[in-house]
């Protein structure tokens, strides 16, 4: 059984704006799934529907096999959400607000669990502090603690690292890995590609309400990635030698670079290329390869649709 199973999901807001169209998506138990997409693509809408904050216009969503509308008590008990916007109570203490969340989600008090949660999030010494006295980064930690207070099986993080400092980002990545190791399914949205590249097992790309691709991260990079071999010339070449025309080489940097592009999935005989260059007495001083990042793949994908 999948952690999340979405079928034919559509959302049209009262304004008439269609935020999601016919989305089908399966999220496996225990994986980290990154939902990538530009601003306004519909990522938050999707998450909010699963969590019960927004009502869908069409389709269905199951969490651990339970319908999120009809069996909302079950699904909401096992889902935790760290929303995009930083919204906390001001006058409550950290301790009170985290325990409040636990109770709200139907769990009996468990001070030991809450204690360990706070220390894992480096909040232990702030437990009696009023939330309004905390920095933005600390407030975000509190939001995470609240989302985990009821020991959810599935955790949604909506742009968790937007505008957070390096230290917190690293802490959050570590926490996500730790949670995954404990079997928690994690769905995060981001428009930082590095984050998806760093964290995700699988990646979905959403653009203007349509899920345009879901793929294993590695497969995605391999399938769509281009590799580029750049050779640094000893002496600039006036043009690509006619004898090498079959390879589709390009000259760069005023003839001092010879660039060879190929699909990452294709196996290339580099030594043959080097031999042919030697036969033509073309000398090079250096070489390096570059593989396109998810960022490039992503920009490519989205721009192709416009």
């Amino acid at each position, binding site marked *: 059984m999948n952690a999340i199973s979405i079928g034919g999901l559509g959302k049209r*807001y*009262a304004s008439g704006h269609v935020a999601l169209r016919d989305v089908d998506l399966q999220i496996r138990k225990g994986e980290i799934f990154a939902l990538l997409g530009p601003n306004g693509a519909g990522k938050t809408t999707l998450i*909010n529907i699963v*969590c*019960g*904050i*927004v*009502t869908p216009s069409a389709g269905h969503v199951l969490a*651990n096999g*339970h319908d999120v509308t009809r069996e*909302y*008590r*079950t*699904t*909401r*008990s*096992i*889902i935790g*959400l760290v*929303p995009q*916007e930083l*919204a*906390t*109570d*001001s*006058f*409550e203490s950290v301790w*009170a607000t985290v*325990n*409040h*969340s*636990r*109770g*709200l*989600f*139907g*769990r*009996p008090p468990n001070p030991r*669990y809450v204690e*360990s*949660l706070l220390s*894992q999030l480096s909040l232990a010494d702030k437990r009696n502090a009023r939330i309004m006295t905390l920095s933005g980064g600390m407030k975000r930690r509190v939001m995470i603690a*609240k989302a*985990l207070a009821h*020991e*959810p*099986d*599935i955790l949604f993080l909506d742009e968790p690292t937007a505008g957070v400092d390096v230290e917190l980002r690293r802490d959050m990545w570590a926490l996500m890995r*730790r*949670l995954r*190791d*404990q*079997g*928690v*399914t994690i769905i995060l949205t981001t428009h930082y590609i590095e984050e998806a590249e760093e964290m995700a097992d699988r990646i979905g790309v959403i653009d203007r309400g349509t899920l345009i691709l879901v793929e294993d991260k590695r497969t995605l990079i391999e399938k769509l990635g281009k590799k580029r071999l750049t050779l640094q010339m000893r002496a600039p070449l006036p043009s690509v030698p006619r004898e090498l025309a079959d390879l589709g080489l390009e000259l760069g940097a005023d003839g001092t670079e010879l660039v060879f592009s190929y699909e990452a999935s294709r196996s290339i005989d580099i030594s043959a290329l080097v031999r042919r260059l030697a036969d033509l007495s073309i000398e090079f001083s250096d070489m390096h390869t570059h593989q396109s990042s998810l960022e490039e793949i992503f920009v490519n994908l989205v721009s192709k649709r416009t």
Partner: protein
Amino acid sequence: MSGAGSDTATFKPPRFNKHGVWAIYKFEVARATRTLIQSLVTPVITTSLYFIVFGSAIGSRMQSVSGVPYGAFIVPGLMMLTLFTESIANASFGIFYPKFAGTIFELLSAPVSPLEIVMGYVGAAASKSIVLGTVILATSSLFVSIHIMHPAAMIMLLCLTAVTFSLFGFIIGIWAEGWEQIQIIPALIMTPLTFLGGAFYSIDILPPTWRTFSLFNPVVYLISAFRWSFYGTTDVGIGTSLTFTIGLLALCACAVAWIFKTGYRLKS
């Protein structure tokens, strides 16, 4: 950290989320107790002022109303006035604030049913106004001697009114899109209705046209019933009053049910 890692089946939520109701109730009561001093001092001072002005200064010149000394006569009305305004203010603020601050997402994503949400918010708001009502009764008893003829009925009416108007406040809090709207209903509607509703006089002393007019004011029935529980006298029959009060409660309950069914101003 989570139960997910173990092989245990999906957490089975109870049919009634008592921890959830308690969490909301406690949260709301904590909010009230942060301002406990103001909450309690204000009604004590106001009540004392009423007695100094109305009870002593004016009351000494007024005859008793339906056999009840004027000072004692105004006590039920005074309590009702506080019950109305406090219930509406507390319940409307309680649900409006999370909408305003953005923290409502947590409530909407929690496994709590509409009934449980209402129990938490309305329960807390009603509790606070019942406490304040009792404080006013206690303060009043320092100035006049009060005899309660039907104590059980008095307590029941106190609770019924507190719950009804807390429900009403809850509806206002959901409907409101700004702070002005939160304040407008109590100021523009409840205060006039209360003053015109016989809080400080019997509507029998009004000219016939105005008296008839008063019968369209729901507050008349509430105050009348409440005064009956104290002194056994009524402006309108106790049966009519009770029917009216319960009808008002049912009306508010239906409105709340509709709000949750449609997600009105809660969900997009």
